[in-house]
């Protein structure tokens, strides 16, 4: 059991996070008990951040006391793992669909560091006022829309200076005919004025035509 990043463990060639709510499974994942602590399996096929770590992300910016803004949290599969990692911090999950929000709300009621926001990431000015005033340490985005890069740049207002960004690009939702590398290049160009890019990772075979970009706000 090695701790590759703060709060993320590797054991038996799989990724694990320490379960904040012992005995409870969020999406049917494996649980593992060792020396009294329970760990939850982090499936790279279901979570894009786990896929990025498996594909060789050199730096994982989320620490135990960081505040995270997660755009596109959906039912909270990845957000729950981030909440496991954050012993001292908080994670705000922004989601647009009212079908997946009830599940996320369940998680928020269980875990003390998860906050729900039902809103459109295209309009960060419509978030609750307290959230608009905070500056987050890390921003994670996993939204499959054509204007993904635009959304990321718009919400970077809420990111502190030299804060980190984890940006998942889904190439087919931008242009299904173009090759993924070309699409990713064009999206990185849009990010360049506000962010400096540290690493780009393609998520094959866990996800087809997806890429994860680790960047830092200038």
């Amino acid at each position, binding site marked *: 059991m090695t701790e590759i990043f703060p709060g993320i463990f590797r054991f038996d060639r799989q990724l694990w996070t320490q379960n904040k709510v012992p005995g409870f499974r969020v999406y049917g994942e494996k649980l593992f008990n060792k020396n009294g602590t329970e760990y939850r399996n982090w499936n790279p096929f279901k979570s894009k951040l786990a896929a990025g770590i498996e594909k060789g992300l050199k730096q994982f910016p989320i620490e135990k006391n960081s505040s995270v803004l997660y755009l596109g949290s959906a039912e909270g599969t990845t957000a729950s793992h981030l909440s496991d990692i954050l012993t001292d911090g*908080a994670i705000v999950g922004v989601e647009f669909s009212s079908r997946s929000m009830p599940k996320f709300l369940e998680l928020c009621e269980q875990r*003390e560091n998860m*906050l729900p926001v*039902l809103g459109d990431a295209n309009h960060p000015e419509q978030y*609750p006022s307290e959230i608009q005033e*905070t500056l987050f340490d890390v921003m994670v985005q996993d939204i499959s829309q054509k204007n993904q890069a635009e959304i990321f740049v718009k919400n970077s207002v809420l990111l502190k200076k030299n804060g980190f960004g984890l940006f998942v690009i889904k190439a087919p939702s931008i242009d*299904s005919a173009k090759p993924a590398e070309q699409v990713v290049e064009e999206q990185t160009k849009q990010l360049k004025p506000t962010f400096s890019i540290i690493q780009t990772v393609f998520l094959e075979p866990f996800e087809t035509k997806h890429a994860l970009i680790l960047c830092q706000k200038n």
Partner: protein
Amino acid sequence: MDPKLLSLRKQLVRETKKHVQEDISQSDVHIIRSVNTLTDLDATANLLAENCREWYQSVFPELERLVANQDTILAMIAEIGNTADFTEKKLSGYGLEKDQIEKIVSQAKNTSGVPIDKATMEKIQTLAKQTLALREQRKQLEAFIEKNVLDKAPNFGNLCTPILAGKMIAKAGSIQKLAELPASALQVQGAEKALFAHLKNKKHVLPPKHGFLYNHPLVQKTPVAHRGKMARTISAKLSICLKVDFFGDKSQTVWTKMQMQLEKRLADIVKLKNKPRKNFSHSFQRADSLRPLKEYPTKDFAQPQFSKPPQQAPQFAKPVYSKPVEPKPDFVQKVYPAPASAKTVHHPTTNSAKSTHPAISNTAKPVQQSDSVPEKRVPENPRYPDYVFPDPQYPDLTGSEPDAPGASSPRISRGKPSFRQRSFSKPGNFSKAGRSGGNFSRPQRSEGNFSRPSRPGTGFSKPPYPRRDSDKPPFGKSPYPRRDSPRPPFAKPRYPSSGGSNPQHAKKPFYKKKFKKR
């Protein structure tokens, strides 16, 4: 970390719950879910009905052939059961004719099935009852969908049938999203696979004409060649109705007038039935139909179409001869004036063997007739009056590779297309399986489109097995003494032939075959 954020949590949870409740109450979730259950109900009811009927085969197998409606069979199974109970009284309530009832009663006495005990019969009967209940549920669900759709979008629901409207709403996600779509998107909604196949390969795959609208009653009534027109008109009207329903006043009835307009459009389209289609191209294959195209424009092949006009032969000074030269037969000289241009091939000719073939150019060839291009070509074979012999002066026309120098256009025809051109149905012509199922046609390069591609070196694409004179073009004996086709410029030089058409014989003197070494 931030105590502010952590204290916010409970408040935010409460607020988002309220937002979610508002969203759900405004959404079209009931229409979408009921449409999805409709398709699933159909599928499950069919499965169970099949099971039930198969099971009943052991009791009364002939019943399936005697009664057409599957639901009546299930009702009979549920209410009657064993063959002993098949009487005229009990069969009276199913809406059958007297002959049918008599047949069933008589057949019930002569079945190859076996009566079964009560417990097993009960199982079959409960299964039949459940299937009938599912069918009933489906009917009620249809009525429910109709009511809901006409409540929320009356114009849209009335113009296309409510079930179809429900399917389109389910696909889009909400009526708002549908209303924001352009009419062209409505036309094609449901045929995304075909649409993206077209967008990836615009040259060879045509876009779909209709998606869900295929099931619209008016589209079903139009002839197949003009369904795209109907789908387009309907989708245009539907988008107007949607906008009226969602952004405007629902109570406004706009659809009745549009229905009349659409029916008039149908009548107009039906009149167009015999008109040919514009912009037809062989190289296209519809993504949504795997059948090869059947229609061919036959009129285009009447005249050979050159991209550049044939050049006039250069005029040379007439040579002076000591002896008078015999005039050649008229028909030869008319068609083939002496080729004196640089394009012609110079074959190695010895003094002894001077072929009189006009295609081979001998330098000291007298030119008596004019060198100009013949205006009218003389047909050689009365059987194929449109066919003309290939001309060595225009080597392009032999159907050689389009990349050869001097090749004008790949599509050069000579009169009637040969029967071998219709090669779609032949197994050799299917390309690798692709989106169109492998059945798409390429622009025809060689004139004689045989199943094997033409090899380089043979300017005239020959049939694979020209064994008989009747197989050789132009399907008859040529008037020339020895050769039946001209030699393309890049072919190997012929050896001086002493008699036979096989050049191999010219290599060895004939006596050496009989000479044996000792």
